[in-house]
């Protein structure tokens, strides 16, 4: 596997062989999070190769810092490292857009998600409607939905990677899901064959009650 230049530079600053403590701590705290790190990196970069580079850079940084890590909240610690690595990465790529990591994040999430056939087994029509509504969300809303609902991050972890308060994550997430619901209600559950009543059961409220009802 070829290493990106940046990773090689960081690597040159890394001790050639880790201490046994460093190795054990890395295996204990970092390796179990590889899946999460890659998913998050993919959300940040929207590119498989960039995501791999970002994870590798995060791993290198984590390896160098592992002996200073207190062992608490490894996911949050790693996400902070990844966030900083991504900011540096974006800074080097686009020096004119340095100062807003959130803007950098938003710019990187312009593509739609892909639903794989094997995932789409329960209710393909409803899933399709949710997907379309998701695609119609603004970038800042999609980011937080993707981190929490697709990647499984907690509010605090999503806040860490976005560099915003937890309350902001919660507010955006809840509003985003409400928009998805309202969007489905507005557009209905559209099928590939709109004339076929069997595959076009109509708007969401026919299946999921009236979302506009007032609170009791």
């Amino acid at each position: 596997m070829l290493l990106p230049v940046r990773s090689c530079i960081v690597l040159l600053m890394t001790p050639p062989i880790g201490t046994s403590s460093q190795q054990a701590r890395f295996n204990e705290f970092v390796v179990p999070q590889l899946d999460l790190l890659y998913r998050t990196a993919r959300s940040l970069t929207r590119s498989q190769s960039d995501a791999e580079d970002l994870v590798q850079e995060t791993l290198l940084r984590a390896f160098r810092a592992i002996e200073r890590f207190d062992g608490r909240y490894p996911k949050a610690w790693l996400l902070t490292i990844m966030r900083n690595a991504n900011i540096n990465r974006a800074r080097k790529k686009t020096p004119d857009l340095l100062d807003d990591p959130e803007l950098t994040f938003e710019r990187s999430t312009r593509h739609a998600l892909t639903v794989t056939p094997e995932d789409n087994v329960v209710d393909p029509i409803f899933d399709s409607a949710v997907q379309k509504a998701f695609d119609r969300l603004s970038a800042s809303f999609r980011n937080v939905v993707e981190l929490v609902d697709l990647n499984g991050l907690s509010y605090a972890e999503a806040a860490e990677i976005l560099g915003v308060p937890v309350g902001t994550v919660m507010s955006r997430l809840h509003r985003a899901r409400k928009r998805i619901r309202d969007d489905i209600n507005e557009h209905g559950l559209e099928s590939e064959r709109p004339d076929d009543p069997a595959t076009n059961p109509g708007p969401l409220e026919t299946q999921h009650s009236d979302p506009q009802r007032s609170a009791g």
Partner: protein
Amino acid sequence: MIVNRFLERLRNPSCKEVLKTVQSYLDGEVDVETARRVAAHLADCPDCNVESEVYRSIKTSLANAAEPVDPEVLAGLRAFSERLVAGEME
């Protein structure tokens, strides 16, 4: 009887409170006591239960849309970690 109803209302959250909390509840982001109160309310209130199920369905659908991680990519990152730990990457 009236006093009991009053005390019950104090103990149990209103629909308005539940609707403000239900998404955090579904995300597992509320404390144990709040989760217990919301769950009790949802069990007794069909309208709020429908609301909860709508959000649960949306969450499930979004989770289903998560693209799985390519096992080869994960294996590559695992191998990278192993080489890093072994000091083989000079």
